[in-house]
Every structure is written in structure tokens, then in C-alpha cells.
């Protein structure tokens, strides 16, 4: 297992060498995922278990955060719109903000903290305590059982969590709107869907798939390659969160550019 990673040979400078070696190892890890995901045995039971862990266990935090984001964003936006007599545009504004950006971003950042760190720590701990080696010697492919299942689960569950966050956020916004103006739920959601285009929803979902994949693969990579020792477990958990968040922001920026390109008349 450890034989498969590129070693530091001090070719350019230690820091630069480490960067390129890390990059090479990350691409090798990614390539291994895309190769192994297609071939049996398929660990369906473990994928379902991971989906439950990632999805169901994240619900309380996601619900609370999404709901508060909806309320706060509505309250913050109202005065500016009211100044121009455009308070009735509030549902449309909130819908665009939540579905296009806030929902996916908030969910992904929370999942990176909660799910990414737990994947990094779990795999790191399994490596330290030789559980990964134990799987390998019992003729089970640990990469398939531990990495492929977790990455599939995050890729599948984050978009679902994003849709849920969007819904909860909009409900929070609705409560905030009805506290000040008399608007029915139907009217609110009619305005919401009028403001959204097909591109908004599909780009939001595709972005969520990308975020989910990133959280899973980064958590697994950091855990799988964590340094030995208990300190390594902590480092793996921490690095999973930091790296995933960093990549999520970059992806958000890239996806925005691509979507804007398609949005242009």
C-alpha cells in the first residue's frame, strides 16, 4: 500500500517537490477511484449505510443552518428592496440567492466540516490501527469498501441535502416575509418558481454533485494517506476540511463562470 505512493527525491526544492509529489499522488488516487468504481464487487450495503450516515445524521445541522440563513437573508434584504418599493420582489430575490448560491455553498461547507472531517479521521484511524491492512489481507479490497463507497455516498447525498436546504431556507424566508407582509405560501412559491430558470436548478444540482464528490474524495485521500500515529489522524481530519473548503470555493467560482457563459443572451 505504502509502496504505491511517490517518494520525495529532492529534485527541485523540498517544498516544491512535496507539492508536485502530493499532486501526483492525488491524481493517482483519483484515477484509482475512477477505475475501481466500475468493477465488481459492488458494496451496495455499505453505500446505503454511508448515505444514511452522511444524509440522515447531517439533517439537524443542515435544517437549522438553512432555516436561519433563509430568515437572516430575508431580513437583511428587505430594507434595501423597501427603499425602492420593491418588497414584493423579496421571494424572487431570496429564491435566486438560495438556489443559485447559498443553498449549495452552505450545505457543502457544513458537510465539509461535518462529513469530510469524519471521513478523514475514520480512515486515518483505520490506517493507524492497521484495520485497512487487515481488510487487505482478508482478500477484501479496502479501497473499494472504504473509499469508493464513501465518495459515492457523498456525491449522491449532497445534492439531496442541497435541495432540502433550499426548501428549508425558503420556508425560513417565507416565515420572515409573512411576519411583515400578508403573503400566502402558494403566492410565495409561485413567485419563487417564476424567478428560477431551468438553468438555475440544473446548475445548482450539478454543482452540488461536484461539491459532494470533492468532500468525499478529499476526506478519503487525506485519511488514506494520513501520517502514522494519533497526531496523523487529527491532521487528516483537519486537512480534509481545509482542502475541501478551499476546493469548494474554487469550484463555485468556476461553475459560476461556466453558467454565466450559458446565461448570456
Amino acid at each position: 500500500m505504502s509502496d504505491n505512493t511517490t517518494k520525495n527525491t529532492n529534485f527541485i526544492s523540498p517544498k516544491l517537490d512535496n507539492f508536485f509529489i502530493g499532486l501526483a499522488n492525488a491524481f493517482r488516487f483519483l484515477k484509482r477511484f475512477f477505475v475501481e468504481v466500475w468493477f465488481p464487487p459492488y458494496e451496495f450495503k455499505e453505500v446505503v449505510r454511508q448515505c444514511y450516515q452522511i444524509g440522515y445524521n447531517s439533517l439537524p445541522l443542515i435544517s437549522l443552518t438553512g432555516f436561519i440563513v433563509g430568515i437572516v437573508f430575508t431580513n437583511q434584504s428587505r430594507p434595501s428592496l423597501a427603499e425602492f418599493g420593491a418588497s414584493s420582489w423579496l421571494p424572487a430575490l431570496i429564491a435566486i440567492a438560495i438556489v443559485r448560491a447559498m443553498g449549495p455553498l452552505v450545505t457543502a461547507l457544513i458537510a465539509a466540516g461535518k462529513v469530510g472531517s469524519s471521513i478523514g479521521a475514520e480512515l486515518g484511524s483505520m490506517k493507524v490501527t492497521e484495520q485497512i491492512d487487515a481488510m487487505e489481507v482478508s482478500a477484501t479490497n479496502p479501497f473499494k469498501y472504504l473509499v469508493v463507497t464513501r465518495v459515492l455516498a457523498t456525491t449522491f447525498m449532497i445534492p439531496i441535502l442541497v435541495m432540502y436546504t433550499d426548501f428549508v431556507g425558503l420556508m425560513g424566508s417565507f416565515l420572515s416575509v409573512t411576519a411583515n407582509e400578508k403573503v400566502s405560501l402558494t403566492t410565495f412559491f409561485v413567485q419563487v418558481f417564476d424567478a428560477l430558470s431551468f438553468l438555475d436548478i440544473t446548475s445548482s444540482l450539478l454543482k452540488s454533485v461536484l461539491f459532494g464528490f470533492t468532500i468525499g474524495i478529499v476526506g478519503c485521500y487525506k485519511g488514506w494517506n494520513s501520517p502514522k500515529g494519533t497526531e496523523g489522524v487529527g491532521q487528516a481530519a483537519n486537512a480534509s476540511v481545509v482542502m475541501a473548503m478551499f476546493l469548494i470555493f474554487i469550484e463555485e467560482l468556476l461553475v459560476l463562470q461556466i453558467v454565466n457563459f450559458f446565461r448570456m443572451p
Partner: protein
Amino acid sequence: MEEKVIEIRGLKKSFGDNHVLREVDLDLYKGENVVVLGKSGTGKSVLIKIVVGLLTQDEGSLLVLGKDVKKLKGKELNALRLKIGFSFQASALYDSMTVRENLEFPLERNVKNLSRAERDKEIEQVLDSVGLLQAINQMPAELSGGQKKRIGIARTLILRPEIMLYDEPTAGLDPITCIEINNLINQVKETYNTSSIIITHDLTCAKETGDRVAVLLDGVFGAEGKFEDVFVDASDQRVKSFYDYNFITQ
């Protein structure tokens, strides 16, 4: 002539500038327990990790049940691994699973067409053989060090291996539990007809479980033979001083 199950010739392994194994030769015969003794960091664990294919040697040949491990990949390597049981130093139990699930994990992946009842019977039988049937629904965190070792051994036995590799089976255990583990290693050999390599620096364990001992010194075997022969007639001062033999025999 006795059948060799493991044949190692001129094995070398380095980690950077650290030459861990310099020239290792070892044979393991069918039905035999060989104890590999040595100080910490002399490459004992590296040796058995090479045997099971977790690491690969830099040079030298290694035949396990007639197969060259270095040349095996994928299904062939897995098929060989099913015939080798590996008991890890820290037991390496899957801590998110119960004892039953730990034993079920290799079984359901490698032994097809077993009914639920047959699987349960198999698990209970193996747990009974290590004397821990009552722990079947416990989590690894609820077990003592000795119990974890036993469950770790049971998990390997469930696949009925021909070869057992024990990595420091008595490390970190109290003397009474050490005796129990030594007895279990001998019992496994008798009951399951296994051939074993036992890695340890515990001379009592070596004496109790080994048909033959080999002392690893600076990457090569400094002495090899029956326990008494190795330590009584040792010509190498490093072997003599490895542990105070007189102290042990007293």
C-alpha cells in the same frame, strides 16, 4: 522430506537508507511453528508483511505455498491471502463493527453460498474455539487487550487458513493472558493444522510456541534452531545477550 509452505531466499528490503532486511533466508515446513525473535525495529514485522503481500521485497525470492508472491496480482494474490491468516499486533479489529460482524466480514466476502444459519454456526464455532462465544455481540472497544487478540485470531481462523502469521501476539499483555495466548497459538496449530510464523521479542512465547526459533540480527538471521540449542550453544554474543537466557530458564 517435509513439505515447505514458505521458502525465503536472499530477501532484502530497505526504506530509504534504512536497510531493514539484508539477506534473509527462512523455510517454514508444514505443521511447524517458527518463531522469529529480534529487537524492536529489526524488521520482523516487515518480513511477515512481505510474506502476505502488504509490502514487496527489493531483492530475493519468496515462495508461499509454491507461489511467488511478488508476481501475484489481483485475484491470484487474494486467493493466496485466503490461505494465510494474519494476526496483527494491535488486533486491528474493525471498531465500527461488533465481534459477530468482524467475523462475518471476511466470511461473507470470500465464502459464497453460505446460508445465514451456516454462517452463524461457523462464527459461533470459531468464537467457541478461542473461548469467547459470550462476546459475540460486543463492540471491540468493550473488550480487553487479550480478548481483542483472541477475536483477531478468530477472524483469521474463520477462513480456515493453512498458514498463520502472528505479529507480536503477546505484546502489551499481562503474564497470565500471555500464557493463554501461547496456549491458544498451540491449540490453533493442533485444531486447524496450521503452519505458523510467530513474530515476537517475548522469550517465553518463543519457548512455549516455537518448534524452531530464528533470531533476526541486523537484517540477517544470526541463529536458527530449537530454542534450547539457539540460546545454550550460541556462538554469537548478540544472540547470547539478546535476553538473559538464564533468567528466563530460572
